[in-house]
């Protein structure tokens, strides 16, 4: 992807009532040509600036802007957020070279943008007049309860934070809980092999047997002692065998000391101890 384009172009966009955004591309020739117009003594102190004009209801540049401010740029900048702090005003921005003596050489001129209002309009239509009480009530019904700060931005921000963007599905798996979270669960995998044609059940539920005779089942293991009855039966139902391992899960609040006595030996019914 190109980092820029070989054009002279300054584009202005509105972020909100108080901020506008400018980005630009300038051809090298354009700046070179402008520099060519400088007298040698104008070169020291030369700066590139954004000149932000308030052109509300003015046909700039035919008519002069109400006022302007200069924003000096650093060499590599190709975009800038401009704090106009002026809702419902129209702006146009020039980018150019500014000499120490105050001469401005235009490199590119932007489009016009108008910032939105940050509060109700002062204009009232005679045919659609609400009483002051009704107006307060209707606006209050929408925004009033949320109006906490003194600046319009504060209460508007409060009122509108409920809104968001239309991509509910892109929400990730963000965890709501702060701090060190910790979960621990225990699954038990019971597996074995038998005659591929045999019928296998675990806890009286049939289990699929693979072509090679192997089978397995995963079980979420609750606390306490479980006896897992596994039966295999020939297809004709004549012969059955069963095994029943016993598994105990005990959850200790904190790690227990390892046993100092001789290690536990498997009991005859092949019980296993698991401490989770």
């Amino acid at each position, binding site marked *: 992807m190109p980092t820029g384009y070989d054009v002279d172009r300054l584009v202005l966009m509105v972020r909100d009532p108080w901020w506008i955004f400018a980005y630009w591309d300038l051809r090298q020739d354009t700046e070179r040509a402008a520099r060519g117009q400088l007298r040698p003594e104008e070169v020291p102190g030369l700066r590139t600036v954004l000149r932000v004009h308030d052109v509300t209801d003015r046909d700039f540049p035919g008519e002069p802007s109400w006022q302007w401010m200069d924003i000096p740029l650093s060499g590599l900048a190709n975009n800038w957020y401009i704090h106009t702090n002026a809702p419902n005003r129209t702006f146009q921005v020039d980018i150019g070279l500014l000499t120490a003596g105050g001469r401005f050489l235009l490199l590119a001129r932007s489009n016009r943008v108008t910032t939105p209002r940050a509060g109700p309009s002062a204009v009232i239509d005679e045919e659609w007049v609400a009483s002051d009480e009704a107006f307060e009530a*209707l606006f209050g*019904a*929408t925004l009033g309860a949320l109006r906490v700060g003194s600046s319009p931005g504060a209460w508007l921000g409060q009122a509108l934070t409920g809104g968001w963007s239309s991509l509910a599905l892109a*929400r990730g*798996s963000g965890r709501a809980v702060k701090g060190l979270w910790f979960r621990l669960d225990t699954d038990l995998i019971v597996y074995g092999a038998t005659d591929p044609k045999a019928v296998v059940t675990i806890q009286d539920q049939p289990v699929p047997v693979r072509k090679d005779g192997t089978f397995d089942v995963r079980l979420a293991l609750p606390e306490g002692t479980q006896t897992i009855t596994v039966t295999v039966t020939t297809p004709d139902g004549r012969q059955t065998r069963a095994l029943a391992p016993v598994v105990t899960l005990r959850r200790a609040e904190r790690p227990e000391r390892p046993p100092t006595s001789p290690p536990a030996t498997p009991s005859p019914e092949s019980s296993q101890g698991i401490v989770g």
Partner: protein
Amino acid sequence: MTRQGFLALVLHTHLPFVRHPEHESFLEERWLFEAITETYLPLLERFERLVNDRVPFRITMSFTPTLLAMLADPLLQARYLRHLDGLIELAGKEIERTRWQPPFHRLAYFYHHRLTTARQRYTDGYRQDLIGAFRALAEQGSLEPIASCATHGFLPLLEINPTAVRAQIAVGVQAFEHAFGRRPEGFWLPECGYQPGHDAFLKAFGIRYFLTDAHGLLFGSPRPKYGVYAPAICPSGVAAFGRDLESSKSVWSAEEGYPGDFLYREFYRDIGYDLDHDYVRPYLNGDGQRTNTGIKYYRITGKTDDKQPYDPDRALEQAAAHAGNFLFNREQQVGFLRTVMDRAPIIISPYDAELFGHWWFEGPEWLEFLIRKAHVDQQTIELIAPSDYLRHYPVNQRLVPSLSSWGYNGYSEVWLNGANDWIYRHVHTLADRMVAAARQFPQPNALQRRTLNQMARELLLAQASDWPFILKTGTHTGYAYRRIQDHVARFNRLHDGLQAQRLEDGWLTSLETTDNCFPFLDYRVYAPSGA
């Protein structure tokens, strides 16, 4: 008209165009699959049940062309079924695994049943044609479908090229007509992004109304006499309806809203994240990255990590209670508004459709309860679509709404900030090049025409508001970055080939099969007559 006031529920459905035939499976394609299973099918089921029970209602839904394109796409339909089959298999294993844990065991059956039912409805019921299912509801009259922009472009930030703004709307209307066989009466401006003047484009396509956020009307000029509780007529003659924040908040807000209730299902505890990786891996994306499966066993419980098992029956009772509460609050609201208004107010409650079911699991049930209760429990409020209100009250105040959106802080900063502002340089340049090329080639040959049409697709896809949104919010950012980069690069290569008369048929064909949305698209939408 005996009712004291009106309530318009508006559901905005949208997903960005995500389709990657070049990969066997693709993580972000799951957005569509999850939305079908968790939102679109449940909503259709509720609406159809209401129709069968002869409960009269009106609900408004916007459909973005990108979503419509994906719902109609055979590849994604097949992949959805494959995805569903995997989940059904996983749910079956869960029935086994949870045998010693009765609360989870019951939930495993619950999910297995939901998923197998979803599959049966999707295949036998709808023949994979969800658009047709929504169209049937529209023809029956309960649903008012409305259009939206081609790729969910956030129009205020595309303003520098009005032809590109117009094209987002034009293609949106075209896609709607293809899907629903009628002209749209209403239009959903993506993210409620309204720029004064854009209503004139809507007017040109016969649109009668659109929706804005509350301050779009409240800060309009002259002042709106009725606030957001009646529409305003823009200079073009199109009506603007404003969002009611009070009713929105009770559903939107994660903290104060209904979806945060402790009995409701916890979104963030999904077995795709919680269970042993080896066990769930076959049901995740191909790369094994953990992701949501939709199988979730816990309720919100409280501000604790010690979550309790989800109980669907108790959650359902709570959804009914919340529906009653919502309706009661609207009745109170209407009663209050009638004291200061000399006509019946309309309360506009717009939500993202995917909030219902996917994010707020009980949302579709809540909606059904609300519609039933509105029908039998009260006489104050009637559910209507915005177009119905315009028939009741054809005369409305004229004003110019204010630039606004429903994004954070109400304007454009979600889509214009340090994380994403770099994209506009490219998106705007592409639009200018597109307009110039469309004018330059009024009589293209076949290959040039295909190239120009594909350039238009790539431009539209690059303009989606989803990419800057994702870049801002910080999940899936790599994907969003890649999408911008791909569409810009594809457009520029097509453009350069066109200018140099070096068109590559094979490469073009591969693009046409990959970015295959909007087959009806005609690049001349960028060279409108009179422009």
